[in-house]
């Protein structure tokens, strides 16, 4: 069996998970809730196996490397990170709406990875610049950060819907606000780690830890926006709508750091 085929099953699994989570909210049934979780966990296990399979397969091809090195692999890992972060925070924030949100985002990303013609899913050899021990830690911390910011983006949107559209089925506004803040603060720490590991890597590859390359600069822009977010919250006491807007702007910067730099601008990261 092929890992990309497994990923298409995972795509469908996450879609089902989002759907079952939604049913459990609409009909308020505890038993359905359990099934949604089982489907999500099954999806994650399947996806993890697909990633490991691809890893092994790359070694069989004689170009062995961790499957974190091209656009397709990064999309797969991005969706994996979202579900992973969701399962960790689930214990604390027991609301199935986060399940809908996470599973749906993970589904969208995988669907794009499988269906878009922009995305090449073959296993490619690694260019020399990417052959580094820093690759794994850099990619993992960056994408876990992206996953946290994605969930924070989701809760910010829900917050605005709750406040502006008065949607009663949504969770308490204060609760949404708290989750946004928590996800941003964890994401911020992971993003910092991602930037640091990237800097250490750049220092080994090009002899400078920072070179104002577009990707580097955009990661700094993202860092500054979320840094401002934390300061408005902690020191100025910003809450609610204003804070949600900052979180949404931050997420736009995340997307630009991830995609825009490769599609719109050019730079050293252009291989991804």
């Amino acid at each position, binding site marked *: 069996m092929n890992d990309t085929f497994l990923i298409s099953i995972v795509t469908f699994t996450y879609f089902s998970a989002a759907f079952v989570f939604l049913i459990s909210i609409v009909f308020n049934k505890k038993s359905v809730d359990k099934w949604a979780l089982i489907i999500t966990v099954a999806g994650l296990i399947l996806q993890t196996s697909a990633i490991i399979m691809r890893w092994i397969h790359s070694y069989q091809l004689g170009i062995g490397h961790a499957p974190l090195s091209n656009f397709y692999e990064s999309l797969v890992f991005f969706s994996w990170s979202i579900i992973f972060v969701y399962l960790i925070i689930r214990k604390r924030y027991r609301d199935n709406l986060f399940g809908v949100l996470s599973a749906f985002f993970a589904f969208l990303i995988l669907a794009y990875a499988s269906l878009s013609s922009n995305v090449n899913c073959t296993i490619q050899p690694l260019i020399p610049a990417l052959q580094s021990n820093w690759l794994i830690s850099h990619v993992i911390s960056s994408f876990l950060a992206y996953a946290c910011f994605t969930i924070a983006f989701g809760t910010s949107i829900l917050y605005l819907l709750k406040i502006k559209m008065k949607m009663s089925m949504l969770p308490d506004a204060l609760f949404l606000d708290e989750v946004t803040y928590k996800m941003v603060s964890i994401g911020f720490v992971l993003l910092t780690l991602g930037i640091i590991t990237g800097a250490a890597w750049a220092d080994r*590859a090009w*002899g400078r830890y920072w070179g104002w390359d577009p990707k580097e600069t955009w990661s700094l822009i993202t860092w500054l926006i979320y840094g401002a977010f934390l300061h408005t919250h902690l020191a100025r006491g910003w809450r609610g709508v204003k804070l949600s807007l900052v979180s949404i702007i931050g997420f736009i910067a995340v997307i630009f750091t991830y995609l825009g730099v490769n599609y719109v601008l050019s730079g050293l990261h252009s291989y991804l």
Partner: protein
Amino acid sequence: MIKKLHKLFSSVKLTIFLFLFLAVTSIIGTIIQQGLPMERYKSLYSPGVFSALKFFNIFDMYHSWWFTTLLTLLSINIIVCTFKQVPRIIRLISPEKKEIDDTVFKSSQIRKTFQSQKKLSDIERHAEIIIKSLVGTPVKTVKNDTIYFLAERGRYSRLGMIFVHISILLILAGGLIGTILGFHGQMNIVEGEKSDTVTLFGGEGAKKLDFDVRCDDFTVEFHETGMPKEYKTDLTIMNDGKKVVSGTIRVNHPLIYKGLKFCQATYGIAGVSDLLIGAKNNKTGEKTALNPNIMKKVPLPGSNASFAIARFVTDQDGMGPAVLGVLLEPGKAQHDIFWIFQNGHNINQQQKSGFTFTLDSFSRLYYTGIQVSKDPGVPLVWIGFCLIMMGFILSLFFTHKRIWMKISGSQDKYEISIAASVSKNRKSFEEQLAGLTREAAVEQTK
């Protein structure tokens, strides 16, 4: 005036403004390519736009006067704000006095008072259970028939924020030192040759090293797709013609000498060596091997002409590697210039003056592209990176929790007061406390 300045720099509003302003202006440099030669910009923009952009140093904006000013303002802002916090943090992390000040029961963030008619020993036991599960093992003191319990945990997590802010200052200072005292550039050295000149990035001229760098050997391996798999250079550092250090550099595996870092960055083809051109006499069928060098003519045996090559290309019109041959015949005003390919290709055009020329063998002469850098600010930046992560871990995974409990009154009616303060997650702490006191109360009424 000083008061006003102090007020400005101690405000978090300034921090937020600077963060967002830096974020927005940083976008410019990702749209307008940085560090190109000035002529390029001149041709891209109209004179008016060009001089405006040049005034704001947009072509190297991250090192411009105004960007540096913004970073300086941010540094002052961080210093003032952090110093303002220092006395409070010192007070918070210095060991708690054993004497309990009754005011905490009126001033703390979290307060709770209730009455109990249980036996004193039971109340004490419950108090200890509550404190232990919320904060840690309590210390008991008795003063004027009143029993006090207190416990504290995670005091040093208060240092987290200070660490993060100091680390930002260290990183900025490291960056400044690097900009002033360091340099970054590239040297391209052909195999077998040496150089002591680094071409600096950003059009800042060249830097002469006080030693030579010799490229002893360069090798590159390719994947089947034609993509480079690995390339490496054997380097020797030479001082006055004497070998000092030798080493091999690969991408991601630099060589460090005298605080200078030599990183394998690129490579390219500088030319060709060991050229062997076959010249077959069409009449006799005799084949001679010519070993010409670029721009040096060799006699063509069996004729009065001579032959030279003008240059080598790795690919001519998609037909592979070729050399541009020149045939010089006495009495002919114009030289015959023609491409010579490897066996077979375009053979007709390679027949000149009764000879057929072929490119029999050659080896590519590579040059290695080495990025050379010196940055004395790096250690400071690494310390900053470690400190910022330590700071985050302290403030993310640890919480400063304090709890005080007072049991006063006499038999039949005791009054229990609880005061607590936490550095974060106050809501969940309050919920836990409410749960525990409720449990205790239920157990007491049983």
